[in-house]
Structures are given as C-alpha cells and as structure tokens.
C-alpha cells in the first residue's frame, strides 16, 4: 500500500492514460449537452449516453476545422484523445473532429483524416508534380493477380511499349493491406522508376478503404517521383487521390495518363522526316539555281566566246571602215574632177591667148611682176601665146 499526494496521484493517472494507444486516437459516439463556447473560442461540452457522461473540450484551432458544430441534443461521433486533466481531476475527451452520428464511422474517419491531412498541406496543389512526357520505367503498385493489372498492361503495350514496367505487387484489401501497399511503394522508391501508378479495381467502400489509410497517404506523399492514383471507379474518391500528383478515375485511365500514344510519336517522326526532306530539297534547288547562273556567267567569260565576240566586233568595224573609205574615195574623185575643171579655167594659156604676156628673169626664171625685180641691162624672157621672146631691159620705171 502506498501513500500519494493528490498531485502525485493525478500525475500518475495522467501518465497512465497517456500510455494507452486506444485512448490516443478514438471515436466516441454520444449526445451533446451542456455545450458552451466562451470568448476564448474553445468549446466545452458533455457527451452523454443514457445516464453516463464524458466531459469534452474542443480547442479553438480544432473548432475552425470542423465543418458543422453540433448543438445540444445532437448525436455525434467525436474524434480525439482521452486524457486526465490534473487540475480538475477529471477525465476529458480532447476533440479534434466532430461528425454527425448518422454518417457512419467510416465516413467520419474519412472526413477527419481528409481535414487533418489537408490542414497539414498534403493535398497542396502547388506540390503536384507534372508527369514525365516519355516515362522510362513505370512503377505499378497493385494486386499481381487483379484484373486491374492486366487492363493497365494492355494499355501500356498498345500506347508505349518502349517503357519498362516494375511491378510491386501488394495486397489491396483486408487486414495488413495498408502495410503491404506501403511496403510496395517503398520498394519502388529504391528503384529508378520515374512515375508510379497506385491502382485497384472497383469494390465496395470497405474494399477501397486501404487507400484511405493514413499510413498509405503518408507513403504516397513521401514519393520521390510523381504518383498517379487509379483506385476503383470514376465515382470513388479516396484519400490517396488527394495526395497523388494526379488522380485517374480508373486503373486503365491511369495507364493512359502516364504514357504518350505511339501513334502520336509516329506522326511526329513523319513530320520531322518531311521537314528534313523539305529543308534539303530547298537547299538543293537553291544550289541548282546558283549553278545555272554560274554556268551562264562562265560561258560569257570563256576565251573562245570572248574571241568570237571580238571577231564579230572587228568584222563590224571593218565593214564600217570599208564603207567609209568607199564613200570618202568617191568624194575625193568628185572633188578632183571639180578642181581639174577649176584649174583649167585658171590656166595662163587662156590669158596669153587674150594678148597678155608673162615676163621672167632669164637669170633665175622667176616671174617679174614689178619693175624693181629687174635692173637695166638684165636679160628677160617673154612668153606669148605661141612662143618666146628674148629681150634686154633698157630702162626701169615705177608703176604708172
């Protein structure tokens, strides 16, 4: 037997309760009463069932995350931890989520986890990574025996057989499924896959529950590469759909989302081939034109052609020269005839015939036109129409 002070006992009780795992994470169903919400923003109430009751407190930060706060008399599911409050010596439920009791425990757990992980930033859109355009290695986490795997492989074979698939088989439902999915994810994180699909075929809400487990959500969140979720049917939404980088409505859709279609790749190749042909074709056409131009230039510059051109020019010049000379000769002939006629008109014979005479100095034969050209006694010759006279100058005088 021991003796403890109140403080010692209360501390002991608090520590005792704190070590209990069930009390650390618990849903409690009951009816709300004595609800009070003072200015502090915290919320205090009592959960009742028949004639039993439990004190509950909900801190202001948790109140903010609860979509609809209950009022007195509401039947609710309250989530939180149970602890011993030493100051008042009372056991209290510290509530972090409240759901109407009608929605069922799974839905309540789903809403609580979703709100909590959202608040923690696990669904943050800014965290979403884009998928590799051409995946090299695709990791798949699913049941190795499920139809979902075959559906996905069929699509991957058809669309993008260049890729390699690394299959991390796991258990997708039942006890231990969450841990199996986590182990499969983690084994893929050790490889060099560049995208991961987490998939499961359709099933009931309970069948799909594995993908609403917190450990699975956190394992997906920790992925070093983009994760695509493809769980159930189009209408099913799971927590990992929110955490994944991309949500696909079904496993087949996930396989389509992570791969390009080889039909498009082939079309791209064809387009590039056409571009290649066109580029080189244009280039060759240009060279052809340049060659034709150069050939023409060359011909014009060739010596033979140049010689021919010069000969042609020379020939033309010669023709022009000949014509010119002919013309000039004819002109001279005509001029000569004219001059001859003129000359004959100017001949002294005609003058002599009219009675004039030409006097020359006998000494040098020069024609005497003024008296001063001769002196007295000089011999002179006189030319008349029909002969010559020899005479001697007797006297010279000046002109009359």
């Amino acid at each position: 037997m021991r003796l403890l002070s109140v403080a010692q006992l209360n501390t002991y009780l608090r520590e005792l309760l704190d070590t209990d795992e069930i009390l650390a994470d618990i849903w409690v169903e009951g009816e709300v009463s004595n609800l009070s919400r003072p200015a502090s923003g915290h919320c205090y109430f009592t959960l009742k069932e028949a004639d039993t009751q439990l004190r509950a407190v909900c801190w202001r930060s948790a109140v903010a995350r609860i979509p609809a706060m209950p009022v007195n008399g509401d039947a609710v599911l309250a989530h939180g931890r149970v602890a011993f409050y030493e100051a008042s010596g009372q056991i209290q439920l510290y509530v972090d989520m409240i759901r109407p009791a009608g929605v069922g425990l799974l839905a309540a757990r789903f809403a609580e986890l979703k709100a909590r992980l959202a608040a923690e930033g696990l669904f943050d859109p800014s965290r979403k990574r884009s998928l590799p355009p051409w995946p090299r290695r695709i990791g798949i986490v699913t049941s190795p025996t499920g139809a979902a795997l075959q559906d996905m492989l069929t699509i991957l074979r058809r669309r993008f057989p260049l890729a390699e698939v690394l299959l991390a088989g796991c258990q997708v439902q039942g006890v231990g499924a969450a841990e199996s999915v986590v182990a499969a994810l983690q084994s893929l994180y050790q490889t060099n896959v560049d995208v991961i699909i987490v998939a499961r075929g359709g099933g009931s809400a309970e069948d799909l529950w594995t993908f609403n487990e917190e450990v699975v959500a956190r394992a997906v969140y920790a992925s070093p590469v983009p994760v695509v979720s493809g769980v159930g049917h189009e209408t099913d939404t799971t927590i990992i759909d929110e955490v994944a980088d991309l949500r696909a409505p079904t496993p087949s859709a996930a396989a389509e989302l992570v791969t390009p279609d080889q039909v498009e790749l082939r079309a791209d190749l064809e387009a590039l081939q056409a571009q290649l042909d066109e580029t080189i074709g244009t280039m060759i056409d240009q060279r052809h034109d340049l060659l034709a131009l150069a050939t023409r230039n060359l011909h014009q510059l060739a010596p033979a052609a140049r010689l021919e051109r010069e000969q042609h020019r020379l020939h033309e010049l010669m023709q022009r020269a000949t014509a010119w000379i002919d013309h000039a000769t004819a002109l001279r002939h005509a001029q000569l005839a004219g001059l001859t006629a003129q000359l004959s008109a100017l001949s002294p014979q005609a003058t002599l015939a009219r009675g004039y005479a030409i006097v020359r100095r006998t000494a040098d034969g020069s024609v005497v036109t003024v008296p001063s050209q001769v002196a007295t006694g000089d011999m002179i010759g006189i030319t008349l129409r029909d002969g010559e006279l020899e005479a001697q100058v007797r006297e010279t005088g000046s002109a009359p």
Partner: protein
Amino acid sequence: MTGASSTEAYEVLFSRLQAIIARLESGDLPLADSLALYEEGVALSASCQHLLDAAVLRVRELQQQDAGG
C-alpha cells in the same frame, strides 16, 4: 537489370534528329555537310521507327524485402 531503357534510346535518337533539323534549317552549312546531316537524319528517323516497331513492353516483378525490411 540496369542500362538504358528503350525510352532512353528513343529520346537520344529523337533529340539528335531534332538537333539535326535545327542545324540544317539554320542554312549556313556547306552542301556536303548538309547532305551528310540529311542522311544521318533519315537514318535516325528510321531507327526511331524501328525502335517503336520492335518495342515489347518489359514487365519486371519486384522482389519485396517485406514490410519493414
């Protein structure tokens, strides 16, 4: 089993093909070089096609070192 996947091989060929076209379109190459590039481009395109034709999806099952391992 490591080494380049078919995707990587395809990527290498395809990006080389794109580079060749860009080079050719810049248009400042001697004709002989252009023709050599063109021939390489045609061969690359054929290789890409061949890779697609011959590709068979490889599926490898991962041996798990069980949870916690």
